[in-house]
């Protein structure tokens, strides 16, 4: 058995712990070199894992060699491998950006980022619902510490809400898990999907309730409509690298919706088939609408970006609501794009705020920025990608989603909402850009700090992925399609993951 599959989970934990030990712990310089190096190793490991998965199909890693469904398994299917690579790239960029001084606002910055990444990677890989909970808690406790990192009134206030909401979410998650275990007798996701068919009809309602409770929990993580109020304030008060890292956390919720409500409660679930879809429809469209209204009403760039994250959540939920393989594939492509671009936008917002003095990133006239042309250029690229205009990757993602709507009713609902939301995005982002970069009071005489080159490099790394996603759109959409097919095909997402059971049946 190859141990490659567990590396994306183990590497960040081990390097995060090593960072707290003496030779590294007392020198910020060594910490920076070590953490960026481990970020690079993580990217290499994830890319390797992606290549292996693309070649050999789903990788199954049984911890302690206890076979599923009795042991705990890590499942690296095409979707998971794609998201692991995404997380690693984001982690590398965030670690690089933090090296410019953000990591000195408090202790253990790099360690916390790496632990957060371990939690996210674990959540993407686990084939066991209880381990999904454990990974959620790992990433959440790291995120609590990161959110409050550096201190300040605003951060305390935002993290109080965030922590309490997520603790309530964790309780609901555990209630749902208890109900699922009591009725289905297993926690392995694939095994749950299998046992759902043998369920006595009395227990159906319990399983349904548990499934809807899971939807609430994942909705809270992914900030879908009635549960999204925490997001804007939390993301806009977090420090820039943390906010960029948080861009992946809403996607963990979206991923869990795709995983649980497609594999367990998908179209093959008998009486409970597609039970979340009828709820996801209005929620997705309303999230999209409310997010774009929020974007129009935002008073500063970080808030605007946070609202654009909500818009992207709505867009991804449309993919989940359609519940077909082609829609899921479109959503996966869009997910890759939107995570990287919104992370880059959070980082740009931070640089803009630093160079505008007192005005920060609020949309008011202020002094001229030192590196106006550079930042303006980066903002321009990020904004084009974010609203989904050609030639960058947002356009392809949205076009794929629009294409995925096939029946007349689907088109009538999706097309206007998605396109008008994009229009709102264009208006909000262009208004923001003109104010930030062109409404200047006084002369441009080069006051203020210059951005460190490693910060610019981190942003360029994130933004460069957008044209790359466009250039290699063919292979990437093929792979996303393959990931969606695996997810929607019970032979691949259920039976293939339970080799010991299928052997027994023969």
């Amino acid at each position, binding site marked *: 058995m190859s141990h490659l599959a567990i590396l994306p989970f183990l590497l960040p934990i081990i390097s995060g712990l090593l960072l707290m030990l003496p030779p590294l712990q007392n020198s910020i310089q060594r910490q920076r070199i070590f953490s960026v190096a481990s970020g690079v190793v993580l990217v290499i490991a994830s890319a390797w894992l992606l290549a292996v998965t693309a070649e050999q199909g789903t990788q199954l890693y049984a911890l302690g060699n206890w076979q599923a469904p009795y042991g705990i398994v890590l499942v690296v299917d095409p979707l998971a491998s794609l998201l692991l690579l995404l997380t690693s790239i984001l982690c590398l960029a965030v670690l690089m950006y933090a090296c410019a001084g953000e990591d000195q606002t408090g202790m253990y910055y790099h360690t916390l980022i790496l632990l957060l990444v371990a939690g996210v990677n674990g959540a993407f890989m686990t084939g066991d619902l*209880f381990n999904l909970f*454990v990974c959620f*808690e790992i990433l959440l*406790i790291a995120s*609590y510490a990161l959110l*409050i990192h550096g*201190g*300040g*009134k605003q951060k*305390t*206030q935002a*993290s*109080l*809400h965030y*922590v*309490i909401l997520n*603790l*309530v979410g*964790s*309780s609901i998650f*555990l*209630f749902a*898990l*208890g*109900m699922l*275990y*009591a009725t289905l007798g297993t*926690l392995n996701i694939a095994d749950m999907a299998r046992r759902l068919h043998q369920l006595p009809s009395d227990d159906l309602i319990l399983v349904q309730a548990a499934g809807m409770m899971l939807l609430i929990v994942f909705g809270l993580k992914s900030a879908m409509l009635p549960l999204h109020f925490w997001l804007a304030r939390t993301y806009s008060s977090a420090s820039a690298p943390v906010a960029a890292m948080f861009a992946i956390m809403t996607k963990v919720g979206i991923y869990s919706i795709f995983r649980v409500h497609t594999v367990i409660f998908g179209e093959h679930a008998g009486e409970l088939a597609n039970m979340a879809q009828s709820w996801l429809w209005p929620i997705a469209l309303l999230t999209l609408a409310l997010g774009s209204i929020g974007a129009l009403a935002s008073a500063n760039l970080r808030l605007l970006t946070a609202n654009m994250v909500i818009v992207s959540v709505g867009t991804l939920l449309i993919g989940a609501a359609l519940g077909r393989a082609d829609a899921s594939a479109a959503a996966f492509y869009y997910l890759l794009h939107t995570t990287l671009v919104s992370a880059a936008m959070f980082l740009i917002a931070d640089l803009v705020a630093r160079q505008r003095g007192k005005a920060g990133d609020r949309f008011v006239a202020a002094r001229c920025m030192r590196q106006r042309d550079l930042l303006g250029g980066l903002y321009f690229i990020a904004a084009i990608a974010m609203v989904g205009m050609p030639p960058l990757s947002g356009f392809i993602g949205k076009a794929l989603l629009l294409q995925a709507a096939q029946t007349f009713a689907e088109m009538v609902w999706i097309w206007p909402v998605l396109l008008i939301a994009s229009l709102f995005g264009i208006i909000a982002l262009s208004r923001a850009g003109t104010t930030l970069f062109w409404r200047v009071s006084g002369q441009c005489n080069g006051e203020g700090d210059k951005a460190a080159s490693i910060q610019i490099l981190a942003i360029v790394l994130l933004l460069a992925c957008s044209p790359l996603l466009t250039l290699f759109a063919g292979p990437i959409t093929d792979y996303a399609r393959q990931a969606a097919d695996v997810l929607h095909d019970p032979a691949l997402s259920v039976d293939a993951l339970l080799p010991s059971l299928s052997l027994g049946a023969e």
Partner: protein
Amino acid sequence: MEALYAFCVGILTTCGVFLVLRSRTFPVVVGLTLLSYAVNLFLFSSGRLAINSAAVIGANPTYSDPLPQALVLTAIVIGFAMTAFVVILAMRGRGDLGNDHVDGRIPEYSSLSDKEKP
């Protein structure tokens, strides 16, 4: 036994939810603790309730499901860590914001005493 057990879990959950909806951080923290107690008991019961059956094969004619016990143990550890964190955060909030309201400020139309109003 089942009825009593279910009643206890229900009472704990009700009190937990009520307290979580309060406006001060201390009741909210206590509410979260009660909720996690309720959750732990609930998880424990997901392996069915049985008397005189340890999770050891051969010790008794019947044995109980060991998995929920492992799950509860994990959930207790995580819940304890999270409670510790939220207590510290609440104290920090009290220090940073000058009051213990969850929003960080006492609203104007509030049932709280006049002394504490800004």
